[in-house]
C-alpha cells in the first residue's frame, strides 16, 4: 500500500467527569483510550461506532482541536502533539474538517463567497485579486454556480450548505480531510449527491479522508478500510470487503446484523444486543464490550483489555477469542 500519511499511536483523551472541591478529577471519562491506527495517502478510512464511542473525539484530536492526554499523532512523520503554536498553524492547513450539521457550521452573517475566501486570505495563499477567481473555481468544483457567491447560508438547502462546507475545506488545498458525519443530516436523495461529490473530489485532488459516521452502509460506500470503535477503543480494523463479509469481533457482527436489509423477502438472522452502550466514565480494565457480549468466555472479565492484533493480513481485531 501507499505511503503513510498519519500514524496514531496509543492515543488517549480523558476528560474529568467529576471533580472534587480542589478541581482534581474524581472520575474520568475516557473518550478515547489507547487507540492506534494508520491512515495511508489517498485512502478513505472509515470510522464507525455508536453515539458516545469516541469517534468524533478521534477526529478532533487529529485535527488538533483537542490536546491528547497521551500518545502521539505523526503527520508525515512530524508529531502534531508537540508542535509550537506557530507550527501548528501550518499543519492546520493540511488537515481540514467537514462538519455534521450544515446549518450550524456556516456563519449566517457572511456570504458564501466570504466563507470560502476567508481561509485563503488568512493563509495568504493568493494575491487579493486572484481570490475571487479561486472562489468561483471552488464553487464549480462542488457543483454550485458563480452567482451563489453573494448569497447567505440561509438561502441554501441542507445539501447545498454541505457543499459550501466542502468548498471551504478544499480552499486551502489540504492533504487530509476529516469528514465528521457529513451526510447524516441530509435526505436520502441529497445524501447520494454529496457522497458522489466526495468520491469525485478525492480522485480529482488526490485527497485522503478520515470518514467518521454511524451509518454502516454510507461508510462502506466511501471507504477503502473501515475501523469499528466501541467505548473509546478500536475493536476491529480491516479492508471494507473483508470487514463486511467476514466480521470477527462479536460487536462488529452484532452491528452488521442490526442493519435493516433493503430486500423484504430476506429475513436475516439478527443478533440483538441487550442493553445500551455503557457510560465511558470509569470504564473497566477488562474488555469494554464484556457486559453486552454474547460470546463472552468465563475469563474475559479477569484478563486485561485485549489489544488490537493482526489476525489475518490487514485484518486487526481486539478480542480474546482470537488470541
Amino acid at each position, binding site marked *: 500500500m501507499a505511503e503513510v500519511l498519519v500514524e496514531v499511536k496509543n492515543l488517549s483523551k480523558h476528560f474529568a467527569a467529576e471533580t472534587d472541591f480542589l478541581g482534581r478529577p474524581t472520575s474520568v471519562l475516557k473518550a478515547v483510550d489507547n487507540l492506534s491506527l494508520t491512515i495511508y495517502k489517498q485512502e478513505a478510512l472509515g470510522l464507525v461506532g455508536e453515539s458516545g464511542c469516541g469517534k468524533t473525539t478521534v477526529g478532533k484530536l487529529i485535527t488538533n482541536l483537542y490536546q491528547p492526554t497521551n500518545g502521539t499523532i505523526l503527520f508525515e512523520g512530524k508529531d502534531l502533539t508537540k508542535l509550537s503554536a506557530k507550527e501548528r498553524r501550518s499543519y492546520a492547513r493540511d488537515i481540514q474538517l467537514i462538519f455534521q450539521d450544515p446549518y450550524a457550521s456556516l456563519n449566517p452573517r457572511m456570504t458564501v463567497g466570504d466563507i470560502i475566501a476567508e481561509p485563503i486570505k488568512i493563509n495568504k495563499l493568493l494575491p487579493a485579486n486572484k481570490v475571487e477567481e479561486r472562489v468561483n473555481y471552488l464553487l464549480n468544483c462542488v457543483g454550485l454556480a458563480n452567482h451563489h457567491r453573494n448569497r447567505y447560508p440561509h438561502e441554501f438547502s441542507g445539501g447545498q450548505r454541505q457543499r459550501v462546507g466542502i468548498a471551504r475545506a478544499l480552499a486551502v488545498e489540504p492533504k487530509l480531510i476529516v469528514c465528521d458525519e457529513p451526510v447524516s443530516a441530509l435526505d436520502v436523495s441529497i445524501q447520494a449527491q454529496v457522497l458522489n461529490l466526495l468520491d469525485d473530489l478525492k480522485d480529482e485532488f488526490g485527497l485522503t479522508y478520515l470518514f467518521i459516521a454511524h451509518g454502516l452502509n454510507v461508510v462502506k460506500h466511501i471507504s477503502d478500510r473501515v475501523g469499528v470503535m466501541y467505548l473509546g477503543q478500536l475493536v476491529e480494523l480491516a479492508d471494507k470487503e473483508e470487514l463486511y463479509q467476514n466480521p470477527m469481533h462479536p460487536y462488529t457482527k452484532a452491528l452488521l446484523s442490526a442493519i435493516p436489509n433493503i430486500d423484504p423477502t430476506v429475513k436475516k438472522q439478527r443478533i440483538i*444486543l441487550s442493553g*445500551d452502550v455503557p457510560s465511558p466514565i470509569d470504564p473497566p480494565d477488562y474488555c469494554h464490550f464484556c457486559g453486552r457480549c454474547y460470546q463472552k468466555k468465563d475469563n474475559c472479565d479477569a484478563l486485561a483489555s485485549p489489544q488490537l492484533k493482526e489476525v489475518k493480513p490487514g485484518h486487526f481485531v481486539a478480542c480474546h477469542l482470537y488470541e
Partner: protein
Amino acid sequence: MMLEVKNLTTEFKQKKGTVRAVNNVSFSVAPGEILAIVGESGSGKSVTSLSIMGLTPGKVSGEILFHGEDLRKKSVKEMQDIRGDKISMIFQEPMTSLNPVHRIKDQLCETIIRHMDLSKEDALKRAIEMLTLVGIPSPEKRINDYPHQMSGGMRQRVMIAMALSCHPELLIADEPTTALDVTIQAQIMELIYQLREKLNMGVILITHDLGVVAESADRVIVMYCGRVLEEASVVDLFANPKHPYTKGLLASIPRIDDQQERLYMIRGMVPNLADMPAGCSFSDRCDFCMDKCRQKMPKLKEVDGRAVRCFLYHDEEEETE
C-alpha cells in the same frame, strides 16, 4: 378496516398564501397491519399523522374514519378520550417529547389514570408492567428517574411504553428510531413487531429509512410534496418499484450487500411547497419527464393491484378543484 382516511387535505396559511402540506391523501389500515409512509423531509408524512390525531393547527378537510366514525366531527373532549387510549402516537424526538420536570412515573401514570379506571397504586403497577414490557432494566427504580437521567434509547422506550399503556388499537409511530443507534433501533423495531402480534394493533410507521420499511411493513405509501405517488405491498414495491421517484430513492441508498461504483442521484432538490412546478410535482427532477408531465398532474390510479401516480403507466389526469 379500522382506519380509513379519505381525501385528507391539510393547509397552512402563510404570509405568501396558502400552503398545502397534505394533498388529497387516502389510505386505510386494518387491525394487525403495519402501513409504512415513506418520504423525504417536507413530503407531508408527519403532518398526515398529526392531522389524524387532530393535533395540527392547519385547516384539515376530508374524512378520517375510525371504525366508521369521522374523527373530524368529534368534540375536543371526545378526541381527548380517543387520543392515548384507542389511537396513540410515538413522537419523533424522545429527547424533547418527555416533560423534563416530571418523573417518568408521573408522566406514565397520567395517561393511565386518564383513560383507565384505576387507582393510583394500580396505575403505578401498570406503569411498571409496561416498562418491563419494553425492556427497561429494574423498572421499579428507573420509574423514579427524570428523563435526563435516561439514555436516548431508554427515553424512546418510555415513549413507547406510554403509547402502549392503554392497549391502543392503532399506533402511529413517527420516525420512532431515527434518533437512535442501529443496535438500539433493532431492539425497538423488534419490540413494535412483537407487540403488534400480541395485541393485534394496527401500526402506521412513518419513516424515511427504507431499510426499516423493508423489514417491518406490510404495505407502503410513498409521499412526495404532500401527495401519494405510489402505494403497494412491501414485496412489490421493493422488487418492482414503478414510480421514477421510488426507483430513484431505492437506487440512491448505498447498499451493504453489493458494491456500487457510483450512487444513483435524483437531481435537484425537493421543491418548495409554496412554489410548486406546474403539472407533476416530481417533473423537474424526473428522468422520464414528458411534455405532458409539465402541464398536468397525473391521477393516483390502480394498475395491477397497486396504485401509482405517473403518466408512464396510464394517462388519466387528476381533476383540479
